[in-house]
């Protein structure tokens, strides 16, 4: 359970940092009046939707950290045999990276009020993400064709499980992205829409990060890294 504990430690660090700014040591019964509570302390000052997405990403992070924990614990048992990582995955990683870049361009363009570039970048981001999903499906077929079925080894099971779970999150993101893209035609490019574009990009970057983490896990680098750490410690 080490991965999830490290993850929670990070969350606790963020929560602790935030709490430390909330004057938890103050004696509230001695302070009255509204102006001791300065406006900037009242709320975070960030857009609510952004905070909401941030909290949601923490939940998604916890989910994948737990999968990673389970992966490591299951890996230690004797029957573990990792399947080869299909070459295609590297191409897919590149495509997902492009998708993330495209959405980042969309954010920059929307900030400059370049509505056409924004639309183009959003559509590029969406299409590349679809291409990523298609690539993932091809990778599944490739593995299955080579005889690495979901039930033939737990490592294979994790491969399908993790890539599938990640793919589902991309799919959910695509719904939001499609909605935002549609709005660039129907709504003016105001602060609200810009925020929407930004949130899509934020989600995409996070899922790219998750994907890289999953890939590192599946390619076996994570366990190599842990082995090195263990050797250094002992």
């Amino acid at each position, binding site marked *: *359970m080490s991965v*999830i*504990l490290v993850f*929670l430690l990070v*969350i*606790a660090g963020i*929560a602790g940092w935030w*709490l430390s700014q*909330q*004057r*938890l*040591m*103050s*004696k*509230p*019964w*001695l*302070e*009255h*009046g*509204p*102006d*001791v*509570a300065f*406006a900037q*302390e*009242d*709320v*975070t000052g960030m857009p*609510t*939707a952004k*905070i*909401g997405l941030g*909290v*949601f990403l*923490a*939940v998604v992070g*916890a*989910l994948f950290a*737990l*999968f990673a924990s*389970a992966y490591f*614990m*299951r890996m230690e*048992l*004797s*029957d*573990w045999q990792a399947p080869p990582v299909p070459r295609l995955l590297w191409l897919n990683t590149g495509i997902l990276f492009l998708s993330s870049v495209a959405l980042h361009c969309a954010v920059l363009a929307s900030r400059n009020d370049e509505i056409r570039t924004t639309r183009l970048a959003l559509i590029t981001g969406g299409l590349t993400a679809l291409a990523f999903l298609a690539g993932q499906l091809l990778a599944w077929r490739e593995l299955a064709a080579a005889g690495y079925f*979901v*039930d033939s080894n*737990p490592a294979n*099971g*994790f491969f399908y*499980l993790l890539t599938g*779970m990640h793919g589902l999150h991309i799919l959910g993101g695509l719904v939001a992205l499609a909605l935002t893209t549609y709005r660039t035609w129907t709504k003016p490019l105001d602060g609200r829409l810009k925020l929407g574009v930004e949130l899509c990009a934020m989600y995409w970057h996070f899922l790219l990060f998750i994907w890289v983490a999953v890939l590192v896990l599946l390619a076996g680098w994570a366990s190599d890294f842990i082995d090195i750490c263990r050797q250094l410690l002992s």
Partner: protein
Amino acid sequence: MVDVTPGSRDAVPPAEVPDVELYHPHSWWTTYVFSQDAKVIAIQYAGTAMAIGFVALVLSWLMRLQLGFPGTFDFITPEAYYQFITMHGMIMVVYLLTALFLGGFGNYLIPLMVGARDMVFPYANMLSYWIYLLAVLVLVASFFAPGGPTGAGWTLYPPQAILSGTPGGQDWGILLMLFSLILFIIGFTMGGLNYVVTVLQARARGMTLMRLPLTVWGIFTATVMALLAFPALFVACVMMLFDRLLGTSFFMPALVEMGEQLSYGGGSPILFQHLFWFFGHPEVYIVALPAFGIVSDLISTHARKNIFGYRMMVWAIVAIGALSFIVWAHHMYVSGMHPYFGFFFATTTLIIAVPTAIKVYNWVLTLWRGDIHLSLPMLFALAFIVTFVNGGLTGLFLGNVVVDVPLSDTMFVVAHFHMVMGVAPIMVIFGAIYHWYPKITGRMLNDAMGHFHFWVTFIGAYAIFFPMHYVGLVGVPRRYPELGETAFIPDSVHDLNAFITVAALIVGFAQMVFLFNLFWSLRYGKEAGGNPWRATTLEWQTPQTPPAHGNWGKELPVVYRWAYDYSVPGAPQDFIAQNDPGPPNLPRHA
């Protein structure tokens, strides 16, 4: 310390919190059914949770009938008994307590108590309820599925959970249970985001964290924990579904079932237990922390005294929330995990007793030199303290690794967790309902029925679960539909079991009176007025009772003080509302 000069009080700048874009219902359907108003969603959540909780209550009667009078009821076969305990446990912990505290009380109280118009993501909030309802319906469907509901015990331990030796293991039961849990978690996440972000972002001007009522602190911290802990259950459920449906061996070792070699191999049942309890232990505090918070406010309000040691109470809530993530394996002392873990987890588990004890001290010290009104919420709060202290202390037996060895998996455990996370939080739920019903409906609950309900429930519940510890001490294992002829179990244990069953049935009957009261008082209850308990917190200061859509009329409240200004020396009344600028130059006591 910081104080305000009288002059500056008049120069309150307008609220800088931007108004939440309020959704406006257009029809009866969107007002009462597909509503995005947190208050309506709260009532939907609470109603559904209590309805399914009632099913679980009936299941507990059936179990008790079997345990008290084994062999009398032919239809309670061992299969049925295991299905009853499984559904009873899972419903009570997840679908009743979690949903009622967070979805019910959280939805109703958070926006009102922090001075917001509504939750920040009302649409997701509405979806949260409907997905929860779907989860409940899927769960109920398993009663009618071929093979009936799962009988794997609420812990759903593999391998037996998905094998044919367990009811529902190779039928629909376990599948529907897992699907239902996955749905619940998705729905809860949508609601949970709301509760957390509303507290973070939508507090009224002047509502600093240290001015939040402890109810909000409790629900907020519990929600944060739930958001981080439920994914563990999600992972466990998904992996078990893979094992059951796709034949993977995440949790399934090589095994021979009824003389037949299965194709599984190499998996680890302990892995499931780690995942399950990584959710399961925080879950205990996900239920307890809202109860802690609410009971603090009940005691303070009805003793007309500020909660003693508010800061300590806040710190303790945060500390318990954080610590509860590193104690999970105390449920697994005898699971066969590495024995050295026992040292670590026993230590962390007993450390968590310290902040918990501080909370108990502060509750009873709040009573000290108070002006205690023995209203129904106060009575239930007192009953909570008794049962919680009792159940918490037996937790010290089970948390202390070596003492747990003889007691684990006996009725002692059953008595312990029912006392501490069954009876105690339920007492708070009742107290809270008697306390806030006037705000929700505008009428008081009937007092006479309420007193009957209180006395029977409190004394009855104690009579059920206190003696049950001793059944466990004798060595009676849990999850036995009948004890049979067992030499070390004296006959008197059977008599005690019969007594417990009778007590359980009586307590169950008292709940019917409570339910009747809920409906009867809707029509015939005494008019309550806006603030019958003369409480300080914001939900009692709404312009309308019950609060209208948008909660606050034209202007959001401005908060001038903490939530506990009761019996302030020099004040004309024994309470000053949070949004009351108050008399000038009130003397302050350190």
